[in-house]
């Protein structure tokens, strides 16, 4: 018994050691940190894209969910890891563009202190309201909110979440930053209370709310993108509905620690690009209501510029939000 056990252990060690001597990056599995719990929108995009990237890289991409503090815990761990190309992270609008204004003690600098890889997917943001609210379009809704802000309750999924970030931007632009905000742990419970009419409106990613809108249990005022979403072609864009300045998308993108070797970055950019060109992967992302990124946004430079652009857009609203 004893011999077998020791023999088995030894054999296993040898077999494992044997596998790790290939040439060039990557020679071992790459860890992709997802700073949110498994099953959320970011996690799903990471898994869909990571699945295909593994094929191009010839090494497994291991998804590691490190949730906490609006995603900044996981991104902090990834951005302070050894810059060897074996630790990358899938962040989103919140962790890269909104975090500096949301979390004053942030331990990474998303503008200058990271190595962007590329955008993986964008999800349109929808302004939705309970079905029996008087207002029936964005214009009358905006007018009602401005006239009587105290009558409205907005729901969001906690400080730092996409729904909080995008709704805070909306409230800032409407000039009602102090509007009653009801915090929930996750958009699921918030949606429940919106369907049952306990709260009046919220902003959320199209994938979480589109079925409810189709079923008529809640109503959608506008989608905050340049184009209408194929998932809900009847919902106007904010430009069409009369609030052109409210343009925001909940994107997800890959980044590595600053100082990651160029060879590794290039290979990762290439793998991401191939994944986004793959019909099957594309279809999966489109099913989620996601927008496939343009060629520019898939490059490190394009993605870096997007982070900077959105940070500038969000900064004033987030900093003046009541805490």
């Amino acid at each position, binding site marked *: 018994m004893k011999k077998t056990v020791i023999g088995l252990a030894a054999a296993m060690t040898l077999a494992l050691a044997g596998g790790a001597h290939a040439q060039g990056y990557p020679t071992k599995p790459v860890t992709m940190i997802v700073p949110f*719990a*498994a*099953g*959320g929108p970011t*996690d*799903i995009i990471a*898994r*869909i894209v990571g*699945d295909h990237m593994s094929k191009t890289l010839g090494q497994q991409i291991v*998804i*590691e*969910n*490190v*949730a*906490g*503090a*609006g995603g900044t*815990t996981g991104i*902090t761990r990834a951005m302070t890891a050894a810059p060897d190309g074996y630790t990358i992270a899938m962040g989103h609008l919140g962790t890269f563009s909104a975090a500096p204004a*949301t*979390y004053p003690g942030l331990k990474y600098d998303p503008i200058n202190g990271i190595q962007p890889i590329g955008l993986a997917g964008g999800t349109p943001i929808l302004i939705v309201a309970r079905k029996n609210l008087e207002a029936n379009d964005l214009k009358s809704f905006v007018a009602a909110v401005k006239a009587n802000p*105290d009558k409205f*309750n907005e729901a969001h999924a*906690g*400080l*730092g979440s996409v729904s909080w970030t995008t709704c805070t931007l909306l409230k800032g632009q409407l000039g009602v930053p102090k509007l*009653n*905000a*009801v*915090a*929930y*742990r*996750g958009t*699921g*419970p918030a*949606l*429940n*209370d919106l*369907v*049952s009419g*306990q*709260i009046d409106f919220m902003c959320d990613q199209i*994938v979480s709310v*589109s*079925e*409810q809108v*189709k*079923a008529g*249990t809640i109503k959608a005022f506008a989608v905050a993108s340049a184009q209408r979403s194929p998932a809900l072609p009847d919902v106007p864009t904010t430009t069409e509905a009369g609030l052109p300045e409210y343009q925001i998308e909940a994107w997800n993108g890959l980044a590595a620690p600053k100082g990651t070797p160029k060879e590794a970055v290039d290979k990762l950019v290439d793998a991401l690009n191939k994944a986004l060109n793959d019909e099957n992967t594309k*279809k*999966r992302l489109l*099913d*989620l*209501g996601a927008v496939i990124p343009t060629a520019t946004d898939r490059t490190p430079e394009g993605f870096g510029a997007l982070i900077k652009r959105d940070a500038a857009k969000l900064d004033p609203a987030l900093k003046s939000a009541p*805490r």
Partner: protein
Amino acid sequence: MDMFSNLSLGFGVALSFQNLALCFVGCLVGTLIGVLPGVGPIATISILLPITFGLDPTGALIMLAGIYYGAQYGGSTTAILVNIPGEATAVVTTLDGHQMAKQGRAGIALGTAAIGSFVAGCFATVVIAALGAPLTKMALLFGPAEYFSLMVMGLCFAVVLARGSILKAFCMIMLGLLLSTVGTDLETGQERLTFGIPALADGIDFSVLAMGIFGFAEVLRNLETPEARDVVRAKIGRLLPGWSDIKQSAMPCMRGTVIGGTLGILPGNGAVLGPFASYTVEKKIAKDPSRFGKGAIEGVAGPESANNAGAQTAFIPLLTLGIPPNAVMALMVGAMTIHGIIPGPQVMTRNPELFWGMIASMWIGNLMLLIINLPLVGLWVKLLQVPYRLMFPAILIFCCIGIYSVNNQPLDVAFTAMFGLFGYLLIKLGFEPAPLLLGFVLGKLMEEKLRQALIISRGSFMTFLERPISAGLLLVAVAVLVVALMPSMAKKRDEVFTE
């Protein structure tokens, strides 16, 4: 009838060879990870998510659902044998289940849990099939105010649940509530009571606290009193419940199913309350409540049935509304969206084979669990015969790996050790840790719901009394509390006079 044609469609889907195999694999994996302390269904389902990419959505969801209720099943095994609740819902099972194991009735406890879960599972499947759609409306009746009152009622139940001093039980609940406030404030993002430690920024993880004050502290307690643990392995006793055991547990099992099934539908993880509520009810209506906490079979049958019924009815809000009531169901949403099915009110009409196939597979899965588990009962009980000097290092390595894998945070393991010390201290001070865990679980939700309700009512406490459901729940809470406190006060007074 419509329901029968739907169910036959479902069974047609679920009985295909591939789906049967997937259901079996799911149940087996679920049982395994449920038995291992620390590795919960959340971690496992998220890891197995990519594997399901290649399957069709129905098969994938059948397997993932199997893992989920299989884990609920397996979790009670660990709770009974080694007194570690792997999931919040197994906390109550430790109270009488582990006592039964100590009395050499481990096999009967495990058998009762398995049969109770099966009965509850069958019942819950029928409920989902028949009432899924209308019951959804119930979930919509519960706003923040109702939910807060429900939590208050849950905490009052916890007082009744207590063994020993009621004052000490109160202390534990309050401490649990206090611990639940540790971490970043949801609304303002301010850190509370964290000592500035980043790992505490998101609060204390349930598994860290539970493994610490139950798992590690139990090991410390057992090391101290070698006699107590030897009793567990001296007598193994019968493996299957006898006729008198079945008679005793039949009614608790039915009541537990109804209670657990009802609470499971509520949004925001109402299923957690099921086992607690069932235990309280059993203790209240028992002829001799003093047997509870000392190995009463009703204290295993009721909560275990409630647990399993709640685990299944928790699918109702997901399948009919598309709203996940807890973290595992949120993962299910993820699994469905990966396969291009956006959960919502339209799943039932647009993907009937998925909806009814899943429901039918739940019943099949429950039958499989019974078949897998009953022969295993003997094996699990034999595990108790492993000398304790070898058993506790094994428990420890499982706990360490499990805790690490919850968040991939090494510091969590050290925190668990700290809570182990804390739990050992609690034992030394005569505190019972179960109410602390309940206070902790409910505390987060309670604060969230209280704040939501008060923002919506613009700061008026009357909202809790003006809404009829909320007022009713508070009334029950007060009644339970009065009933629980009266005899104990009388008893204390007696002690003064007889001293």
